[in-house]
């Protein structure tokens, strides 16, 4: 890899350096905009004891749910962990540690991790179970709790397009947590649908500047739909 060319040619290379007990921050909301092939690579590697930071944990046989059967996940920090029978089993049996975090707080914690903000106050969760053990403070007559930043050893991200320098463009609501995740990994790996030459993307239209990105890989995606909802035909 010379200069800023961040393109790697195999998923093995993309996830090189991943070790047991690391923390991985993942983009995606439900199954939308998830780094599906990077997740499959983690499944294949069999890495164990992982802490996963992601809004959701996939479904039984897709997305982060793939890491459950072999018990690769030790802990997950997520806002909603519904649609997954194996997940529920491991959570109820105590095999899996689940830290529920409000969605906006989770997004802000990732952003803070990337932005060098170690902690911030938010009204979200004040007076709820989320506030337990956290500092509370009244500011300007309103109540807030202190939340801390999250950083990962790896961030795994799905973008639409990248240039070779790692500048990223996301597509529609597949953007979601991906830009924040990209900033918060010591090593940020991004899989994309298209790689263009550097200089081809409009500098005004880049969602994530390449400075946050370490590796880029071109993938093909199933893009499974969780709730396919179609208008009644007229």
């Amino acid at each position, binding site marked *: 890899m010379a200069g800023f060319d961040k393109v790697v040619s195999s998923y093995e290379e993309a996830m090189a350096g991943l070790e047991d007990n690391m923390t991985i921050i993942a983009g995606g909301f439900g199954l939308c905009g998830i780094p599906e092939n990077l997740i499959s690579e983690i499944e294949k590697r069999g890495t164990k004891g992982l802490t996963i930071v992601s809004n959701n944990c996939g479904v039984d046989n897709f997305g982060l749910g793939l890491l459950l059967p072999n018990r690769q996940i030790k802990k997950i920090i997520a806002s909603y962990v519904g649609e997954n029978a194996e997940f529920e089993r491991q959570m109820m049996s105590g095999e899996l540690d689940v830290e529920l975090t*409000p969605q906006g707080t989770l997004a802000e914690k990732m952003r803070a991790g990337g932005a060098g903000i170690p902690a911030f106050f938010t009204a*979200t*969760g004040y007076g709820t179970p989320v506030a337990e053990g956290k500092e509370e403070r009244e500011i300007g007559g309103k109540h807030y709790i202190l939340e801390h930043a999250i950083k990962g050893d790896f961030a795994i991200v799905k973008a639409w397009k990248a240039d070779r320098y790692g500048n990223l463009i996301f597509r529609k609501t*597949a953007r979601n947590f991906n830009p924040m995740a990209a900033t918060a990994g010591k090593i940020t790996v991004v899989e994309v649908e298209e790689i263009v030459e550097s200089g081809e993307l409009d500098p005004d239209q880049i969602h994530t500047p390449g400075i946050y990105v370490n590796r880029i890989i071109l993938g093909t995606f199933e893009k499974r739909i969780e709730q396919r909802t179609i208008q009644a035909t007229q």
Partner: protein
Amino acid sequence: MTLSREQMAQRVAQEIQDGFYVNLGIGIPTLVANYLPAGIEVMLQSENGLLGMGQFPTEETVDADLINAGKQTVTVAKGASFFDSAESFAMIRGGHVDLTVLGAFEVDVNGNIASYMIPGKLIKGMGGAMDLVAGAENIIVTMTHASKHGQSKLLANCSLPLTGKGCIKKVLTDLAFIEIKAGKFHLIEHAPGVTVEEIVKLTEGELVVPAKVPEMKF
């Protein structure tokens, strides 16, 4: 006659003004979009990163990259924008959304809301609900007034773990439209065919009933 889900949505829709940015939760709140008053424009915010949510797609326009917060495939309305989750919750937490409509298990006289967790039952998570209730200036909770077993959901104190503290000011149930002020429920309207007595009976928290309670209009 208690209100149907559709009637509840219809009554909530009357609270929406022209030019409102609105976040509609899953369930009854989602139905509100079907009853918007004629001649007004509304933009729907979906907390997964979309302002200007449109209708469901056709078979031809369905797009896996375009979903709402309920993970349903959707389309965009004119003038829509996409953004990341941090920006989306900046909008919500920063109080930029004009109206939020969401469901709940319980609400109490202090504006507390419990909506995400029943101890002993499977905990799926709060999603964006805690952010929504903490950030919005204007929230309408929609829920049935009481459980199937006749237990009030409008309480003196919420019994379930809270989603938010002191943040709810309006509740629309299948029986009544209620405001919360100064530690009390206030009966604003009753559903057609529902008596004030029935409402009082099914409201556990202190309920202030004015001399004349208007009937909801549709």
